[in-house]
């Protein structure tokens, strides 16, 4: 499938997954891939520090104000660009109150911790404020594609389920209206989809299958293909004896090196088998296409590696 068309299937793509699967890296790679395909992309970070900005070599943490992170310079996507911003519940509340002409009581409210109390009475309020802001950006056409780096898996369910939950509590009023509009956004595949990220290991596979089921059945969201991150590229021909092979070539390996080659090959064969098993389990458990991202073998993951992953992701998308 053409990458630009794939990126234009919906306007909000929520990237979700268990901690440690590389959700932020995937968010950055999706953003760069879409920008390279000519889209105007906005990445939204919801928690934590560093994140997408650090990955792309941006000197500062993202804030509520947009920052330019990446521009495509050549090829068909040369007009594409990537911006980033962070949205916290407090920012979203301040923004909300200001746009509703309630700015005066704002500081009082925040300094007294009253929001915390009301957030208790209606726990989804914080999340709905954040989702409401994202919805507002989407409706305003703030970008061709908004990529949301969502909270970790269990929290993602709570986060995305906040609108439905809140509708039970707040029966009238602007928050209710906000919750309804957020629910509409999440339920419309042309506007919003969820991209789940996992790694080819047992527990993360179990969790992504479970999360996917709950997102679909409870929240009615549409799932984009599942991204499998950190896939070891399959190497064929690892089952040769290095000493015998060297002898056949008329060479001689020092014993320490031969042993390392042998042990590394055994290790890799084991990992590849486990990985294949887990990828099959994922296919069996989850009827979604898979996009595989390779394990990065460099010393660190920074700007060049994200660009490389964006390229690998584009190849995977083209293969859909």
């Amino acid at each position: 499938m053409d990458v630009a068309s794939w990126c234009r299937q919906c306007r909000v793509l929520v990237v979700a997954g268990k901690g440690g699967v590389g959700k932020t890296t995937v968010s950055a790679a999706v953003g760069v891939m879409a920008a390279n395909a000519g889209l105007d992309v906005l990445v939204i970070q919801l928690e934590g520090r560093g994140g997408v900005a650090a990955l792309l070599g941006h000197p500062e943490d993202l804030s509520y104000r947009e920052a330019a992170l990446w521009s495509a310079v050549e090829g068909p996507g040369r007009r594409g660009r990537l911006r980033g911003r962070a949205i916290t519940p407090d920012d979203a509340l301040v923004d909300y109150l200001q746009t509703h002409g309630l700015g005066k009581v704002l500081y009082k409210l925040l300094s007294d911790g009253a929001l915390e109390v009301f957030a208790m009475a209606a726990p989804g309020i914080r999340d709905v404020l954040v989702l409401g802001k994202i919805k507002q950006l989407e409706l305003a056409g703030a970008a061709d594609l908004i990529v949301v780096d969502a909270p970790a898996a269990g929290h993602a369910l709570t986060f995305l389920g906040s609108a439905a939950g809140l509708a039970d509590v707040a029966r009238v009023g602007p928050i209710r209206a906000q919750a309804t509009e957020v629910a509409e956004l999440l339920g419309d595949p042309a506007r919003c989809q969820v991209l789940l990220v996992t790694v080819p290991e047992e527990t993360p596979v179990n969790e992504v299958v479970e999360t996917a089921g709950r997102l679909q059945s409870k929240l009615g969201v549409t799932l984009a293909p599942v991204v499998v991150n950190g896939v070891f590229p399959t190497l064929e021909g690892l089952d040769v004896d290095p000493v015998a092979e060297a002898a056949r070539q008329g060479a001689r390996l020092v014993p320490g090196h031969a042993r390392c080659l042998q042990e590394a090959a055994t290790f890799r064969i084991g990992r590849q088998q486990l990985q294949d098993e887990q990828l099959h389990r994922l296919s069996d458990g989850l009827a979604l296409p898979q996009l595989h991202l390779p394990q990065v073998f460099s010393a660190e993951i920074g700007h060049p590696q994200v660009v490389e992953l964006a390229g690998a992701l584009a190849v995977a998308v083209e293969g859909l």
Partner: protein
Amino acid sequence: MSSLGEILAQRGVVVCCGSGGVGKTTVAASMALSAAESGRRTCVVTIDPAKRLADALGLASLTNSPLLVVGDWPGELWAMMLDTKGTFDELIVDNAAESGRAEAILANRVYRNLSGALSGTQEYMASEKLYQLHEDRRFDLVVVDTPPTRNALDFIEAPRRLVRFLDNRVFKVIMTPTRAYLRAATMATRSVLRTMSKVVGAAVVDDAIDFFQAFEGMEGGFRARAAAVTELLASGETAFVLVTSPRSDAVEEALYLADRLGQSRIMVQQVVVNRVHPRFDEPDEGPPALEVTGPLAVLEANLAELRAVADREEACLAVLGQRVTRTPLVRVPILSSDVHDLQGLSEIAKWLVEPAG
């Protein structure tokens, strides 16, 4: 500084903290098993609702009270899963002056959402449970697995946070008796409540007011308990063990956590690095092999890739060694499968207490 083996042999409380996805629950259970194997009566408290740990321990399910794990070791191993809501309910019933008061709180919507929404409530209940188990004479050692991410800090801060929550000024004003209320309820306070009614609906505001009225007078009990829990966590009886994996994001979180614990004057005693890739180091035995071709090239490429992975992990971990602990990091290698049974936990336990080299 004590080794992990010494900590498990001597301390009364071990708190495992670290970010999500690093295998904290498994490491906590393995430490508890190791202590039981060396003769201590140990209880592990997990907050992970996944059934994996119960399965590995051979239990049908874990509950809010400790269950004995059947196994062949000189000590005892007990396991439980924290039920935040259940623990909080018990705390309310214990602290309420009269029974009607407890029921009013348990039925209040603010209270019912408290355990899910007040950040740190789960940590607070974990520390409360920890305190109860520590007082329980059945156990020599309690190992607790804290909730993931940076919230683990709330483990220290949560008791105080709840007290602060209950001390909320806006609601203090409303709860004071009528005449004082008229004096004290400034325009600002009323305007805050009016605003909130407009935004979230009057029912939500009423619930909040009811909640604070029902809770009145109970803060004292909570404050005293919070102080006792905080004291236990800061005492020499407790050891904090940081669990991480050799990835930059997990290490970042670990550093942040260690810094914040340090601010509360709590030293991280040991750092466990889980799922470390092998290094395939070789002794220097002379000149490298000649240019290789054919099948050997695949083996060389594989070795180079795996060494790159190991080097990246080492680079991440070097920072931990410099900034968090002077004792060697406790490394657990990446194993060929996930932990499914006691044998798997026991294998990890060996790496924890008998570090390689």
